[in-house]
């Protein structure tokens, strides 16, 4: 008597967990079915809301993709469909004729308008040019023009050549990689110092690290730029690369939080075996901390790839050394009205690499953000 009651209770308590429907099917149908139906309904409604929200959220990306394949004429044509398409034409007896959507005999056919008339016009069938002309009764001006899919992928190669994309790409990759090496090295050392050693002023120094996150950049940029200008670094990559080797608050914080979760027993064992602090870091700590080290590396790669302000101010006089973000902004500033298709093609090329990096390493990415934000 007691056992069946318990199992019924258990099924009530686990409502909403995976496998629920399967379990409920084993129960007496009339009592549990409304709940199962309600849950399925909620599940459908919630997923539907998420799909609609996501579609709205990502729709600009789709628009950019369609624009990137359009020619300026296609973008200027207000009647054209959302996908890249040109008004269809048919070459008939040596001349070009527009193709319209003609309702004939209950269906709509795409036919080329050969002889225009006010109340009846003659059309040729593009699929069978040799056939006699088709006469259609009605005003041709009421017909919708037919469009055919006509993408212009050459936008990508054009923008590639016009803004010297290979150079921009090489610059961006080099700056990102060198900066990432510097960031990973310096931040690992500093985070290890904060996570594993006791010393006077540790709390104050760590508070200072956190405080720099909230410091407006404007309050340091003027002297920094002036000094870099004085020592001849403006117009080179040095202002972008050198600071990366001196650690930054975000990544130090992220690494330190993670190192604190690694138990100390292994460190102590290593130190009893005579390993110094450097040795311990390399052979004990790093093998356990690699997920967060990868997270920091990815963070810096993406940050560096996306950075706009610093390359803008330090490299504005040396176009050969600029990054894709600055090159794209310069190109769009000059060309925004004349060829939106080219700009969107350049835009998609610029976002492709960070997006791919994210999709490949999304686990590390998400974990990294969670550690920085929540453990505070």
């Amino acid at each position, binding site marked *: 008597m007691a056992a069946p009651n318990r199992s019924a209770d258990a099924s009530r308590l686990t409502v909403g967990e995976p496998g629920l429907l399967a379990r409920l099917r084993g129960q007496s149908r009339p009592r549990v079915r409304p709940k199962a139906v309600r849950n399925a309904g909620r599940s459908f409604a919630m997923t539907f809301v998420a799909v609609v929200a996501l579609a709205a959220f990502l729709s600009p990306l789709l628009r950019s993709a369609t624009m990137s394949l359009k020619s300026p004429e296609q973008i200027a044509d207000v009647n054209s469909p959302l996908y890249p398409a040109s008004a269809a034409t048919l070459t008939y007896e040596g001349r070009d004729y527009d193709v319209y959507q003609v309702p004939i005999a209950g269906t709509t056919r795409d036919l080329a308008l050969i002889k225009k008339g006010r109340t009846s016009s003659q059309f040729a069938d593009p699929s069978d040019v040799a056939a006699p002309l088709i006469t259609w009764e009605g005003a041709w001006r009421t017909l919708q023009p037919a469009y055919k899919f006509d993408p212009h992928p050459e936008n990508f190669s054009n923008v590639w050549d016009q803004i010297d994309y290979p150079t921009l790409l090489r610059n961006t990759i080099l700056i990102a990689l060198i900066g990432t090496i510097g960031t990973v090295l310096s931040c690992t050392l500093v985070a290890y*110092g904060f996570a594993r050693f006791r010393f006077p002023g540790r709390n104050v120094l760590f508070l200072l690290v956190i405080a720099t996150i909230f410091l407006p950049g404007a309050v340091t940029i003027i002297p920094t730029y002036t000094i870099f200008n004085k020592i001849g670094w403006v117009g080179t990559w040095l202002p972008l690369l050198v600071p990366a080797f001196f650690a930054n608050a975000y990544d130090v914080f992220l690494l330190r939080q993670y190192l604190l979760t690694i138990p100390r027993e292994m460190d102590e064992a290593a130190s009893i075996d005579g390993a110094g602090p450097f040795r311990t870091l390399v052979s004990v700590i790093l093998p356990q901390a690699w997920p967060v080290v990868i997270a920091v590396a990815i963070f810096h790669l993406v940050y560096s790839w996306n950075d706009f302000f610093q390359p803008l101010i330090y490299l504005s006089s040396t176009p050969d050394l600029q990054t894709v973000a600055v090159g*794209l902004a310069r190109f769009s500033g000059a060309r925004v009205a004349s060829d939106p298709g080219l700009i969107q093609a350049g835009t998609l090329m610029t976002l492709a690499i960070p997006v791919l990096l994210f999709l490949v390493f999304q686990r590390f990415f998400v974990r990294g953000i969670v550690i920085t*934000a929540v453990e505070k």
Partner: protein
Amino acid sequence: MTASAVARAAPHRRFGLSRLAWREARWAYVFLAPWIIGFLAFTLIPMIATFIFTLTNINLNQAEPLRFVGLDNYARLLGDQQTWESFTVTLKFAAVALPVAVILPFMVALLLSSRYLRFAGAFRVLFFLPYVVPFVAGVLIWLSMLNGDSGWLNLFLQAIGVSNPPNWLQDPNFVYAGLVLVGIWGIGGGVIVYLAGLKGVPTELYDAARIDGAGWWASLRHVTIPMISPVIFYTLILGIVDLLQYFLVPLVLYQGTGEPGGTTNFLNLYIYKSFFNYQDMSYGATLAWFLFGVTLAITLVLFGTARRWVYYAGER
């Protein structure tokens, strides 16, 4: 007693530390050296230098001789209409954008953490994805999306019956809404943070609330929000600091002209222009310290109120 006397009297102690502790501290400073040097070179000394600049007439091309001018720059700032206009622009935009920056990621996180949502993992990845889109690329994509004639937003609005939708980024009355939309791809970071916060709320609390008869809204109001108030606080502070510094999007969109109708003359843009366009270092520095002071004041006031509404579970 001199330092050497101390060292003689207690040869195994330095700065009040035992020899072992001193060795540990020395190693710590070795490891911290990159950050300490970087902090001095790229943060602390430039900050102080910026402050000293505010007291001088220093200039990139220094036409008149360099001298101390006392508080002249601050007096100029107080009487400078452009400063107050740009400050008002910054505050107005922050007032529009801050609620979105704090609430929208929370709503998305609630949706993504719902136990009724199918394919939650895929949705999380896709909602986060635009966060890694380079800032310039995102701005150009949204510029095209918000185009008054052919942008999809207005095509959609026309399709649902709005006869005359605004030209978002060119109309002074709608430009802040447009800029908020441009910034909307940045919510991914906030969403992840909120998701982590929501995951940390003990399920017993929800069970207890349900037994007490709380519905969805009541348990959100009395369980979820208090329990994740530290995350809300974090998002709020970071949002304010970011919004007070806002100017890069208008810099790319309008090349720093302040269009439409001066509505995008942000304070930080004014600082940028004072220095890079007008080469006026001392006044740019003064504006920068003004921005810093305002940021600090607002942050401190918020930390002061935090005691009353932010709940830390581990706190005693």
